[in-house]
């Protein structure tokens, strides 16, 4: 199964409430997947600053050791930490991060932060204090594992490019072949997970010059399997369902926001939902919104 949610705020007055809405939506989807949960958040981007979200099962020791090697401060949240630096210092910071073998980089970008762990959505939301965060848009996922093990790194969202992320309900059947092809193109893929291959594919397409919309269109030909995707970029939010479309999806739009849920249940507490335009996205059709 898996449950996915997404919220793209058009009205900036709602930005302080992104975390609470997205958390409520994800919590409602808990019974679609008990294995792991995660949220990607996009908050005010600054063009000169780069943000890294890192994770480690031995985080404090790694943070202590890195503190002496870099002037940039780590803001710890449970097993994750966020560190920011000016763009020109990014390579130096990356070298420091890579000096710690246990450190996993969950996301890199001007805007994105990713928090994900094994466990139910409510537990993950509480551990990372996700109800209190603000931002312009975000996506969330609760996983019922099928294609790879239940681990932190197997949790969604997956980020394979700067400020990009993907959550997925379904399973890709040609991910092994595609992984080999992408690795041959020098794309880095860290896990055995099918969704990471989908994310890496989109990133690779965009590196070749495709827009997100074009990359999603191309995936209709190159990805085999079942999928409802929700993707996030620095300014945007997109939805795509495979042509068979057996994985559920509901979209809602008002003047203030666009919201996605695997089920309508996920959307019922959003402000003004009763008057929202609510519809089921068409199969094999790319939907995309940008700030």
């Amino acid at each position, binding site marked *: 199964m898996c449950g996915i949610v997404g919220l793209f705020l058009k009205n900036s007055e709602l930005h302080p409430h992104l975390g609470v809405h997205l958390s409520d939506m994800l919590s409602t989807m808990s019974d679609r997947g008990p294995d792991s949960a995660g949220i990607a958040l996009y908050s005010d981007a600054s063009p000169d600053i780069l943000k890294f979200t890192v994770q480690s099962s031995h985080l404090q020791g790694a943070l202590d050791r890195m503190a002496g090697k870099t002037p940039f401060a780590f803001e710890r949240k449970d097993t994750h930490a966020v560190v920011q630096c000016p763009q020109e210092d990014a390579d130096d910071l990356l070298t420091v991060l890579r000096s710690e073998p246990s450190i996993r980089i969950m996301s890199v970008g001007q805007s994105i932060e990713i928090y994900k762990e094994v466990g139910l959505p409510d537990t993950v939301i509480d551990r990372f204090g996700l109800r209190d965060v603000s931002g312009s848009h975000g996506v969330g996922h609760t996983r019922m594992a099928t294609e790879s093990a239940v681990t932190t790194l197997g949790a969604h969202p997956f980020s394979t490019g700067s400020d990009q992320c993907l959550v997925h309900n379904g399973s890709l059947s040609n991910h092994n072949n595609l992984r080999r092809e992408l690795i041959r193109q020098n794309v880095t893929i860290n896990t055995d997970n099918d969704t990471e291959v989908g994310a890496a594919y989109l990133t690779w397409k965009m590196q070749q010059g495709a827009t997100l919309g074009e990359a999603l269109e191309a995936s209709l030909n190159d990805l085999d399997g079942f999928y409802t995707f929700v993707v996030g970029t620095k300014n945007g939010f997109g939805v795509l369902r495979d*042509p068979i*479309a*057996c994985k*559920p999806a*509901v979209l809602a739009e008002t003047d203030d926001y666009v919201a996605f849920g695997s*089920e*309508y*249940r*996920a*959307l*019922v507490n959003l402000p003004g939902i009763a008057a929202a335009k*609510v*519809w*089921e996205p068409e*199969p094999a059709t790319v939907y995309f919104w940008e700030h």
Partner: protein
Amino acid sequence: MHTLDMSTVEVRSVNDTLQAENSTSNKAFLLENPLGAHAIAVGLDAPVHVTVNGSTGYYCAGMNQKATIQVNGNVGPGVAENMMSGTVLVDGDASQYAGATAHGGLLVIKGNASSRCGISLKGANIVVQGDVGHMSAFMAQAGTLVVLGDAGEALGDSIYEAQLYVRGTVKSLGADCIKKDMRPEHVTKLRNLLSQAQIDANPADFTRYGSARKLYNFDIDNAGAY
């Protein structure tokens, strides 16, 4: 009118109340705040009238017998799945496999129905005022699907003896589904069905589709393949 507020009463308890009505009951129930919950008003077996004020999740009105269930909102996947008799009216849109395997009764959808509407239909009548998605009436055995809008890809794939009437365009027909003549008995049947669904439309504007009967018939020339 007996009102149940689903923001405070569990689905299971609501269904217990509705299912406790006996076959002579004609009570009316109003369900407020369904909040997209699953399996609302399933397994009813009495001629009660249930109004659901809002949108529902999976399998609303599933296995219905005798009851009239009206949803003032959209319904999730599998509305009126395996309905035996009675009437289900949906004011908004229906998600996939609306009326799947339904044996009897009438399902009316005022908005659009998405993919696989009336899949494996076994005798019920379904009237959709908007469009239906791909693979609708897949392997439909008996009953009728009426679509006032357009039908998606592979309409009536591997169809048996169900009858399909579409007023708009059909994106493509599935295997063994063909266009058929509208004979006077079909016009009469469709007029009755539209009238039951309280929809004003001219039966002459519809095209009938059904089985070419090439796929499911045993053909002696193919005996070697078995």
